[in-house]
């Protein structure tokens, strides 16, 4: 997503859920939502890590003041 954020690796934002956070990100860096989401859900090939845990509630995952969120490619397995 670095091409959308002008090379910025991390940003601080305010949001209460993962979905809101992506909305705020998209306002600041247009195109982020399309990169991460498809049809109102996180894309299948993206994993959101919220404070070291996979966001099991998807875009409804709660976010608190000091939450760290990272977006990684999905790893399946064999």
């Amino acid at each position, binding site marked *: 997503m*670095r*091409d959308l954020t002008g090379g910025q690796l991390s940003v601080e934002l305010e949001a209460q859920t993962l979905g809101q956070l992506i909305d705020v990100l998209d306002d600041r860096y247009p195109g982020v939502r399309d990169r991460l989401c498809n049809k109102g859900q996180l894309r299948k090939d993206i994993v959101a890590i919220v404070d070291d*845990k*996979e966001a099991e509630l998807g875009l409804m995952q709660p976010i608190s003041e000091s939450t760290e969120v*990272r977006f990684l*490619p*999905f*790893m399946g*397995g*064999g």
Partner: protein
Amino acid sequence: MTTEFKVIGTKPIRPDVIDKVMGRAIFAPDIMISGLLHGKILRSPYAHARILSIDTSAAEALPGVYAVITSKDLPQTPADNAELKYSRDNFLAGEKVLYEGHPIAAVAADSIHTAEDAIKLIRINYEILTPIMDMREAMKENSPKLHENIRLKSLGQDNGRPGNISLHVQHILGDPEKGFAEADEIVDREFTTTMVHQGYLEAQSSTVLWNPDGNLTVWTTTQGAFSVQSEISRILDISLSKIRVIPTEVGGAFGSKLRIYIEPVVVLLSKFANRPVKITMTQSEVLKATGPTPGTIMRVKMGAKRNGKITSATAELYFEAGAFPGSTAGGSPRLIFTEYDIPNGQVDAFEVLVNKTHVGAYRAPGDVQVTYSMEQVVDELAQKVNMDPIDFRLINVAHEGSISISGTIHKKIGAQQVLEAVKNHPHYKSPLKEANMGRGVAFGYWPNNGRDSSCIINVNSDGSVTLVTGSVDLSGTRLTIAMQAAEVLGISVDQVKSSVGDTSSIGYTGSSGGSRTTFATGLAAIQAAKDVINQMSIRAASLLNVPVSEITFERGFFTTSTSSSAKLSFSELAGKLNQTGGPITGKGNVSPSSWGAGFACHIADVEVDPETGKVSILRYTAIQDVGKAVHPTLVEGQMQGAVVQGIGWALWEGLFYDTQGRMLNSNRLDYKIATFVDIPHIETELIEVPSPFHPFGVRGVAEPAFVPPTATIANAVADALGKRIYSLPMTPEKILRTMDVID
């Protein structure tokens, strides 16, 4: 965390082995139903061609033929849904065939012989196109395109130009160039690997009974009944509730049976024939038209200071996708360099379309290839700074809190403990002196997986329980899951009848893959067992006439805090359930969001015959952080099996094609896998660093074991030859060429 176990860590006999050894286990080809028809698929003899016309009339007229289908019998695909079109096209080709073996039509008939005769009567006019078999050719601007509508999605953006590169993913950490400027030594190498098949012996086989009411039942060999159900639903626009999938015993999978290849075709044949239909693929069809692991081109560069500290690492990774987009290219950048704490780095991964079968998953998908390349560069770098290869790795090994180039932050891991165990192992300390012998080591990581699992436990009146999960048993997981339930219930594992449910009998459960089953479905079983205990505690309170808050369950007994003599055993209480409110069913539905990664390091001694180029494996040791080993013998089996597969990949295996895209070794004689005559006894050492995300400390074990072998053997062969071979497989021909014995 529980530290004293009664069941976990023991070695009971697998409940499924007697049936398998005696030939009684039911595999997919064994399914027989009254009125069963036999299906056969017509496949393309060309790797790249346009389909101009299909005439099925002669096949339809053949006596004994009940149904003939082509892509016209699939639902209409919306123009904007390319992903669905690719999926449907892979079951029955539409406008083009894109690899040798691509399905075009299918027949159901009263015997397999009639079906075989019928497909020969189907007439197809082709416009033969130039096949693209090589990634370097495929990536050229003027190369023929497999799909006119595919444009490179580079870093998430569509570049607007048609091409055969369908994906570019990039990760950057720190300043890679600055890191290389700080290095005293730099190694920069290019590696290639070929497509490799998973080598399972049981071919794909499915039987479908389509009922006139629109409900259908599927018996199939798969790693996940629910994924078969959802794929049939997606491909054929059928409601999930109408599809029941019954998984049979599995004769090997290793990732290939995560995806389906024939089920929607069999569903359509059964629907149109109004009879049950079975298709069993031949071994040739399996090799030509299922999903092998991608071939690769990988350029890896790493730099280190003389003190051994790696300062920077970069990789450019190209993965064959085969005929359709979708491969391990997206995820593999998360795997390379993740074993080490490296401050600067960049990984670029590309997915390239070629006229070969669409790739699939193979045990630690993508990880084997990237580790094969990285660990050879690590070895060369260790030599350049004059360090022991294990000491070099110990200087750079990842720890809890280390962040990888792709952004993975390690949790509690046993990486350092594994390397220290290698350094102290008698094998590593033993001398190896004779000419043409070499020793290699390699280190590997696999993140493992969690995700959705379900389990139910029913309590029987004699104190035994029946346990049902949705996890297909590939490796003895019926037992390892039962052992976890038994540990919680305080009963013997013999008292747990563990079985695999179908999509109508158990809640959604993800496929058995990603080394998740003993971990995640084990958690579901633990939750279900605790639910049983909670419900039985209420019954015990009723019988003992105390509040439920005073009931404690420990070591198989329900006791009260007020009276030492008032207690009920699990089996005693089980016998009284029908007097205290009726049956009890415990349930567990989990979706663990954290799990423990696995690390493995292997040691191999090899001897190269300078006259024939044959590589003999003299001694092999696999050391791995397995978390808490639920069943140590099964864990060792996973480690040893992984090494056997790795030896085959390192030395012989590969799918080879001629320039026209015809596979040259599509049979089990010419596609050589390792057998007992090729392998030594494989020593194992289990390092148990408990995962913090499981009450017993369980980690996945099957895939971490498969990551190091190819690199380990490559490093050993390089040590023996004094020269390195940069491609897999390391065939005798390549060995002799490297030794300058042949040109």
